[in-house]
């Protein structure tokens, strides 16, 4: 463990976080707002990477977990006016339950079959939101009366702190023996089982951890936006962004996923003047990375370091 604290990766991450933490002192609220959203997205992508990169489960429905957490927190606050923190915590717990539900088919079906099941889960959630419009606000969106704070700097620090803590926990988990067992069971479940590891238990744990962070981040995001809508936390397109972020940043790196998410959101904003072509350009860049640098940003950097 001591070797980790002196490793180059740790030092670079530390410098990045320290620099990022000082940003509110000299950049505008607009950039802070952008980065706040990007940081929450980073957590989505890291949680997804834990499931896909390590447990080997193609989850097309990260927004099922995110949306469940976000809407549970939002509805509790809207209907009962419970305190923000209680709502966020309950949102994350609801998401854990959702992760459990999602894990059940994953233990039975694999590959594209599981991918479709997760996609269906998102479509069901979307239908649920639209059908129970009285409760969820339907297609217009759910108004959330409370916010954590309206100070842009404070919101930014909360998001940064949350992302850093999540990154530390998820990265630590991925490098721990548990992460190795997960990786083994993702690549060859039969052999990993033959070595005496309980695959079901490990995969279930991966789903629960992934769901917890997705839900927590989703709940925090709606309290930042002040609204929850299908377009921001449930839509398949949001899930696609999460997946693209993780693949772009480098699968199986956890930290790369966060970088990918920040890149995706910031690039989308920079390309705003190009209007409707922005999504086209971002997808094209992502496709090129997938084709020519399949390891992603961090994957390429890490393999170079490993070689030297």
């Amino acid at each position: 463990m001591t070797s980790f604290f002196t490793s180059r990766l740790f030092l670079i991450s530390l410098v990045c976080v320290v620099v990022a933490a000082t940003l509110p002192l000299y950049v505008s609220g607009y950039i802070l707002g952008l980065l706040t959203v990007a940081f929450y997205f980073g957590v989505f992508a890291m949680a997804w990477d834990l499931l896909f990169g390590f447990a080997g489960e193609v989850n097309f429905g990260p927004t099922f977990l995110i949306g469940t957490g976000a809407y549970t927190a939002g509805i509790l606050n809207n209907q009962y006016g419970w305190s923000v923190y209680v709502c966020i915590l309950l949102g994350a717990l609801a998401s854990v339950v959702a992760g459990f539900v999602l894990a059940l088919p994953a233990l039975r079906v694999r590959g594209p079959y599981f991918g479709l099941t997760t996609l269906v889960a998102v479509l069901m959630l979307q239908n649920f939101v639209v059908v129970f419009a009285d409760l969820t606000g339907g297609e217009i969106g759910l108004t959330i009366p409370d916010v954590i704070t309206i100070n842009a700097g404070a919101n930014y620090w909360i998001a940064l702190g949350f992302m850093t803590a999540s990154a530390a926990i998820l990265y630590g988990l991925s490098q721990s023996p548990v992460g190795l067992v997960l990786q083994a069971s993702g690549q060859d479940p039969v052999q990993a089982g033959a070595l005496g590891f309980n695959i079901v238990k490990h995969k279930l744990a991966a789903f629960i951890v992934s769901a917890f962070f997705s839900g927590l981040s989703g709940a925090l995001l709606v309290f930042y936006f002040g609204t929850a809508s299908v377009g921001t936390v449930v839509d398949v397109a949001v899930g696609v962004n999460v997946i693209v972020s993780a693949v772009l940043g480098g699968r199986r790196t956890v930290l790369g996923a966060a970088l990918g998410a920040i890149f995706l959101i910031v690039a989308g904003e920079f390309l705003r003047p190009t209007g409707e072509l922005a999504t086209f350009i971002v997808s094209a860049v992502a496709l090129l990375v997938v084709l020519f640098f399949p390891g992603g940003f961090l994957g390429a950097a890490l393999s170079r370091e490993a070689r030297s």
Partner: protein
Amino acid sequence: MLALQILIDGFAISALYALGATGFTLIFGVSGVLNLSHGAIMVAAAVAAWAAASVLHLDIYTGALFGVGVALIMAFATYFAVVKPIQNSRRIPNEEKEIFVLTGTLLWGIMIQELIAYFFTNNAKTVLPIVEGVVDIFGNRTPRNNIFTALVCCLVIGLLWLLVNRTRTGKAVLAASMNPRGVTLLGLELTQIYIVVWGIYGILAGIAGVLLGMFLGVSSYSVGPLTASAFSIVVLGGLGSVSGSLIAAFVVGYLETITAYMISPAYRTIPALLLLVFVMYIRPQGLLGRR
């Protein structure tokens, strides 16, 4: 009378679903590729047919042919620009190629969708139907276009069956879906078979897209739902099984129509999704799938 109306309406939409899903499942069966740009290719075909008629002022038949041609080109572009480089890449480990093809074709589909939205806006477009008017079937006024759609779908699927089972090329395709290595040992070039399959896929997706444009109309927003519906029909029927997809297409088509008529159009897709989840639990390989 409601039952008859459901029977007639459901048949057209089911036949259309079947046609759309057949190409999708054929590609999976032969080359193991799940093409997530499927919806985008269908919409591109429909929009091309629409543009040929209303921008270039071509007649309806040429427009429809133009749409199918665009889908064919798109299918080849998908194969050569996205799928083939990933399959041949040395930097991607073999067991991860599947997810890379999924991600790659997904991004490719988004690119096509955005280009369509950029050049032709997001508005829904309806291709002028080849046949117009309505006929009376036992007291049910049915647009002739419905019957035309159903007939064309059945005809094309029938032709596909003949092609696969009765011609040399078709038999090679079938053999490749059963055992790719065996086919190479018999001296057939696997790459050529893949090109043929993508060609067939492009034509099928193109016809399905143009018919969909005449039947319901399309917009760039239909890309996602179209891919999702083809995906779920194909999984329900069993990945790679063409006859399974045909059955599944009719099950989903009728389930949706019955829900729309008996309960509410707003709940249209829900029972089919529930059925899908249910089937995944009790029979994960789908109705006729082999694992």
